[in-house]
């Protein structure tokens, strides 16, 4: 497995998801899980896709390693165990208290979050019983889920009772709520770029959305510090790491071209941020990419 392939699949999935091509997105995330069964980002997206689009997406048979296992009461994020303990993967569950709003957007809500239609009763569900009595699922020594353990411990029954009884459809949640929920979830998963893309979509529709603005600020600040950490000290002076005549053979956009043209061996990073005229995040991202690609060096 190549890290680049995995990352490419995740990117493809996110792009497809954002473009509304949910089937493609799901397929990409599932291929990603085949490559890396423990991949939290792919799992997070699959859970969210199932949660928000059950009516429009034909169920995709999950790969053995990618069974979306609702773990009652689990937070919607992957928590890393302290060093020296066995890894425990907690998966976000739709409709579970403490899960993200994207999870709450499920059209098959938990009994706790939505009562059944009048005159109808659901079979009791373990979801009604609070935190799971079953033990957490553990990773086997070679990494990945121990599928046998999963099969043994799982006592989850279908959410939709047999016999055609089902909850009345929820009124469709607005796109803004869905995007915001998904953005929060991505933020929690550490996918700040994905989260930012969704937040920007929210703000395009509702520029005054306070919570979205807060997430925008947090996402940007986090991304800026991530990119800046790759640059080195703000007063370091970047230099071209390739021959000037080789610049033409790179694959850059005109903004990167502009920034690269400002790098003359005299201007430090702080000055580049000032004279770029671009938002700090964009400048930091472009510079970090130029460093990663070996075009410039500090």
């Amino acid at each position, binding site marked *: 497995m190549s890290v680049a392939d995995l990352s490419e699949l995740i990117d493809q999935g996110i792009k497809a998801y954002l473009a509304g091509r949910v089937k493609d997105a799901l397929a990409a995330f599932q291929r990603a899980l085949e490559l890396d069964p423990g991949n939290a980002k792919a799992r997070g997206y699959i859970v969210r896709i199932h949660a928000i689009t059950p009516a429009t997406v034909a169920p995709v048979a999950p790969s053995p390693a990618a069974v979306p296992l609702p773990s009652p009461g689990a937070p919607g994020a992957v928590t*890393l*165990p*302290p*060093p*020296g303990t066995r*890894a425990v993967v907690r998966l976000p569950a739709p409709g579970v208290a403490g899960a993200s709003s994207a999870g709450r957007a499920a059209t098959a809500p938990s009994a706790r979050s939505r009562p059944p239609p009048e005159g109808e009763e659901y079979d009791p569900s373990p979801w009604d019983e609070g935190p799971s009595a079953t033990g957490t699922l553990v990773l086997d020594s070679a*990494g990945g889920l121990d599928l046998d353990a999963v099969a043994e411990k799982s006592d989850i029954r279908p959410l939709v009772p047999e016999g055609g009884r089902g909850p009345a459809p929820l009124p469709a949640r607005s796109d803004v709520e869905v995007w915001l929920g998904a953005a929060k979830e991505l933020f929690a998963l550490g996918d700040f770029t994905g989260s930012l893309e969704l937040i920007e979509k929210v703000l395009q529709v509702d520029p005054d959305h306070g919570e979205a603005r807060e997430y925008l600020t947090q996402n940007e600040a986090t991304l800026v*510090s991530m990119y800046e*950490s*790759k640059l*080195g*000290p*703000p*007063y*370091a002076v970047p230099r071209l790491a390739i021959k*000037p005549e080789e*610049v*033409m053979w*790179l*694959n*850059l*956009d*005109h*903004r*990167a*071209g*502009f920034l*690269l*043209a*400002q790098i003359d061996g*005299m*201007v430090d990073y*702080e*000055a580049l*941020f*000032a*004279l*770029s*005229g*671009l938002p*700090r995040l964009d400048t930091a991202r472009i510079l970090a990419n130029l460093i990663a690609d070996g075009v410039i060096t500090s």
Partner: protein
Amino acid sequence: MSDLDPVIGIDLGTTNSVVATVRDGVPVVIPNRAGQLLTPSIVAIAKNGKRLVGALAKRQAITNAESTVYAAKRLIGRRWGSKEVEDARRALPYALVPGPEGNDVRVQLGGRALAISEISAMVLAELRADAEAWFGRPVRRAVITVPAYFNDGQRQSTKDAGLIAGLEVLRIINEPTSAALAYGFGKQMEKKVVVFDLGGGTFDVSILDIGKSVYDVVAVGGDTYLGGEDFDRRVMDWLTFTFAKENGGIDLRQDKMALQRLRDGAEKAKCELSGSTAASIHLPFLVGGGDGKSALHLAKQLAREKLEELTKDLIDRCVAVTERTLKDAGVRAVQVGEVILVGGMTRMPRVQHAVRELFGKEPCKGVHPDEVVALGAAIQGHALTAPQPKGQEVLLLDVTPQNLGLMVVGGYFSTVIPKNTTVPTSQTHLFTTVQDNQTQVRIAVLQGESERAIDNELLGEFILDGIRPARRGEVSIEVSFDISADGIVGVSARDVVTGQEQSITVTATSGLTEEELRRILDEQRDDLLERKQSERDLGERRGQVLAIVREIEELVPAVTGALERTRFGKDAIQKAEGVLARVRAAVAAGDQAALQAEEESLERTLQLFKGLAATGRPPGR
């Protein structure tokens, strides 16, 4: 203050400024902290809120045009509503507003309305800081140059700018005089000298009569909107046109980033062509290809002949202005003893050729045209502060820069004190009434060169009433002008028969009120105190931060051990090293803001390391 304190000469230009000094008897240009001899006279508030002065401000001047102030010299000391200000308002991308009293000009920058003197002060302060870095000690005294046509108000504004920048301005001298000083003219020669000054934004021609250490600027001409930037623009237009032709009509002028790079590339090529016959312009990834296509490159060769073809009319304009100035002064080209070239554009071979053809002689090229004015100012500064060998003194007297006089009937200007009169001075003229039984007259005091009163600068006015009723022309009114050694002009008008008298005192002002100037200077002092306090704070913060850095470094072995036993957090050490590197750089640079920004990361790293070290410790320890 000792006489050994350094003195600097500053050429505060419209486009670029230069600072020089005399060291061991030799005039030298002081490079700025980036190693350049020229500092663009540009001030900006960048989009990230940072104040930029000089080359960095220039490099974002197009992409951040609304918050970049250039050519402030065109506005200094000008009155709101004057023709020059109206022209500037049409040409400049930044916002101009009237001052609080409605008579001077302010620039809207970074949410504040700044006086032009404050903008110029930022440039002067930058030059001062460059000089201090070069000398390694404080610099407090300077001679600053201004165009010969500057009036008292413009000179006073320039002085105020120096004051705001923390400089004692020993003297304001004329740019052409300064250039002549740099060539050592005036010591043993008596001749007419023409100073041909083609700078970045303006073109000035001055004719000087030099003899026995007297520098008399007898005529001044020019074009305030003709300079090197016009030459750059021609190259830019040519590049834009050919690029559009070759790339399906893509107009580079629509993209600010492309335009900024185009201007930088055009200027660079133009300068190269002064020394070679062809220049390459390579601007990779200049503009987006449109419809998701890759960014496009610009790669062009510009030949010197092509540049000359593109700018022929601009050079012709320079020649025409020079001929007109000579004609107005009644001087024939053959009478001119020397021609001094000033300004970077005069390095263009075609310009030198035009000057040579016009005057029939080789222009002086011994001193670099970019540096000559600043070097002359440094020489004058040195002459004012260091004892000169007997017989070699160069002493410039304070003279009136322009004619002083009154508005008379028909809207004409009547000179009372001609320009270049040494101050202090006093002159009296007789005037009379124009109407029968006229009992009052309006005395409008003006300064300028034009015969039409309206084209000159109004310094002040008053009404003299109680005049004896009489037929027109029978009343004699005596008007006296007094200029003190401090440049304060007193004007009085008296009815000779009745003795009825009125007077006015005019002090050159920069538009800044006394109160404003005091406030700005107080702010400078506050800034200084704040800097000192911040240095103390920095010392304390540095100590605290370095203690945390040491603690983290001590935890590294334990954390490394703990990380070896897990698949997770392998990059923790690497990330921590990044944080430590940034902190060390901030400590080394004395950057308090950077230290503050890193404090949280540093604290988080320490907590994480403590946690990791604790989990990695064997049980029982």
